[in-house]
């Protein structure tokens, strides 16, 4: 009874859009949920140790925003759990027991996160300061753990292990631990967690860059900018290494995805990498070729053979330009982040402060959204690059989708709800930012 039947689902496109859209929204909040608790605890710790009101104030203000974003993040994650079943019941019905274990473990991480965020936010000034500080630590740890486990499930979709398909087409010999510790897990999870620190750091620093552009350059803005941005900039060079690791993993396990990331048609020895350009008629037009670079990136060997899209049946090729553009943008932004980090490092070594240039706060303001773009692009690379498979070379997306009618209306409804929610999240965050600072921090209105 487990044979895979083709599904007649005219709304397949909407199902994919809905999944992509709700994941794309969730991941921003998830990154905040992983990194911002650490930033808040760091600021609170500095404040407690030095008695410095600037740090104490920053910690409190960030914590308020974190509380709001955590709530939105939690409910946006809940939707995803529903959607797994609502949109892809055949995938879940067939493989739920293979790939479900990490989600069950993740559930405990969610519990801890939610429990400690309640204690941390509402125990301020009520718990002894040390206890309060320590109550903040599990929030971030649990956030990172939940990312680890959910990426384990995603890694399994890219590198499905821990089961076999028996001759009658049924799933057999299930090993949930084997599925969880698939080979894609480590590079993906580490790349993801680093991304969270880049995104969280850049987003938290952004409003202080903005304030500086408007002429407010007190120590409060400097610290508010420097602490989160430093965290992000420590992660940035590591991210390059993790990205390289991820790329080499893709090269070995998902050659079609790698070929789409570059737009490589023919299998090539010493394959080039094109900067920019667009893929038409089986080649990249208008890009700047760099000889051998793709082989170097993918296999650390200029003479390595890289499989091209021609090796894959036309129906099983991912949409090249989407994947390729997303990948290029991610790498460009990642490289630019490295530049920003170097700039900060030089300024710090010279004058123990942030760069003096007018351009610096501008760059910081751009870095926030840019980090989010890199994040989304990375996921587009991974997810669209996996197409047409929901489980790499095991199950196609069109065989996984529900056969329920009219699912596009759910998508429309969700779009409307998310649009309204995004607007109000912004309004509430702006209001939180405008709450006046304590008097001791200066005479600002």
């Amino acid at each position, binding site marked *: *009874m487990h044979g895979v*039947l083709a599904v007649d689902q005219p709304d397949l496109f909407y199902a994919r859009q809905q999944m992509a859209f709700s994941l794309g929204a969730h991941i921003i909040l998830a990154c905040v949920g992983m990194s911002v608790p650490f930033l808040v605890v760091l600021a609170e710790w500095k404040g407690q140790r030095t008695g410095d009101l600037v740090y104490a104030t920053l910690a409190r203000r960030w914590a*308020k925003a974190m*509380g*709001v974003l955590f*709530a939105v993040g*939690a*409910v*946006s994650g*809940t939707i995803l*759990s*529903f959607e797994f*079943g*609502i949109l892809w*019941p*055949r995938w*879940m*019905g*067939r*493989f*739920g*027991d*293979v790939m*479900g*274990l990490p*989600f*069950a*473990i993740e*559930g*405990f991480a969610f*519990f*801890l996160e*939610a*429990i400690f965020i*309640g*204690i941390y*936010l*509402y*125990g*301020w*000034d*009520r*718990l002894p300061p040390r206890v309060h500080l320590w109550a903040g630590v599990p929030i971030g740890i649990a956030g990172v753990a939940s990312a680890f486990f959910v990426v384990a499930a995603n890694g399994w979709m890219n590198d499905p292990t821990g089961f076999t398909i028996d001759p009658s087409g049924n799933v057999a010999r*299930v*090993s*949930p*631990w084997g599925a969880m510790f698939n080979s894609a897990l480590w590079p993906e999870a580490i790349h993801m967690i680093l991304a969270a620190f880049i995104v969280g750091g850049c987003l938290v620093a952004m409003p202080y860059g903005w304030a500086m552009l408007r002429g407010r350059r007190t120590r409060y803005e400097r610290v508010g900018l420097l602490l989160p941005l430093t965290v992000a900039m420590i992660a940035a060079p590591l991210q390059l290494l993790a990205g390289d690791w991820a790329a080499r993993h893709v090269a070995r396990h998902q050659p079609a995805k790698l070929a789409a990331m570059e737009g490589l048609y023919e299998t090539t020895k010493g394959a080039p990498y094109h900067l920019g350009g667009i893929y038409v008629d089986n080649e990249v037009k208008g890009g700047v070729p760099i000889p051998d670079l793709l082989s170097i990136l993918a296999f650390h060997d200029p003479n390595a053979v890289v499989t091209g899209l021609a090796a894959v049946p036309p129906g099983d090729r991912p949409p090249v330009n989407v994947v390729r553009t997303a990948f290029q943008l991610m790498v460009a932004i990642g490289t630019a982040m490295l530049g920003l980090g170097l700039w900060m490092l030089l300024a710090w070594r010279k004058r123990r402060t942030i760069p003096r240039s007018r351009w610096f706060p501008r760059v910081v303001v751009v870095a926030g959204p840019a980090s989010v773009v890199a994040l989304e692009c990375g996921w587009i690379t991974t997810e669209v690059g996996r197409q047409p498979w929901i489980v790499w070379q095991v199950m196609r997306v069109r065989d996984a989708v*529900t*056969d*329920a*009618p009219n699912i596009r209306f759910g998508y429309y*409804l969700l779009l409307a*709800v998310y649009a309204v*929610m995004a607007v*109000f*999240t912004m*309004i*509430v965050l702006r*209001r*939180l930012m405008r709450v006046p600072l304590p008097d001791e921090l200066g005479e600002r209105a």
Partner: protein
Amino acid sequence: MTLADACAAVMFVAIAVYALLAGADFGAGFWDLVAGGAERGRAPRALIEESIAPVWEANHVWLIFVLVTLWTAFPTAFAPIMSTLYIPLTLAAIGIILRGSAFAFRKASETLPLRRLFGVTFAFSSVLTPFMLGAVVGGIASGRVPAGEQTGDVLGSWLNLTSVLGGVMAVVVCAFLAAVYLTADAERRDRPEMVRAFRRRAIGSALVAGVVALAGVAVLNHDAPDLFHGLTHRGAPLIVLAAGAGVATLVLLGRSEYALARLSAALAVVAVLFGWAAGQYPYMLEPGLRISDAAGAHATLVAILVVLGAGAVVLVPALVWLFVLMQRGTLAGEG
């Protein structure tokens, strides 16, 4: 007891805890909705906000826990439930989104118009979500979700008498639990006026729940004979227990024994849920799918139970700490 039964039992415990904790949070939203204008409603709304703010997110996680256990341990039940009942489930999910974010937004807002908008959204979605989840339970319990890969009737599975009964019952029970808990909370916080107000609501909603339950007898007899048979046979002792605990709650409320009333109210709700489970056993989806058929691979069931055991070691102390701090009134910081 087989491994599959053990997993189903754990899942059912999680459903019951979700109903008791998150159910009360939803019920609090119901009382927020009917608390009256800005002036009259200020005191009850303040009590509601203080009582649920630090805990609702942790309470909500029980639902996630139920979902992931269902799809990991019983994938072939998860799939048809989610696809056949996708409409009420989507509406419940949207209610969850609106409730959570509106509540957080309200806490972070100062101005009256915004607070009002978020407040209404919070309160309205607090009714929508339990109604839809109750309707889902009604659809499952009345055997309207066919097992297998073909999606069932996406309308009839939840637009039927049993589902309406489930939805209404869920809303009423949430309101009842919330009112009982809030009475006890108000007493602990020394707000006699709120004690009286919520005690009245608790008694009122208990009576409504009783009436709905009696109507339910007729509805189920007519609309879901298998379920009715289960509830009146194997589930009967639990249903009797539930009725007894409900009456006891009324008596305890009358005698101002609020801490005990809280326990007996919880007992009543748990007994109904387990009565349903007992009545339906050994089926996951009547009439075609037994718990043992729906269960996933043996190795996975073992893994889940191991994970649950290990996770409980971490979870229980943290949960206990949260509730102790809550009961002591420590978690009343600014938030």
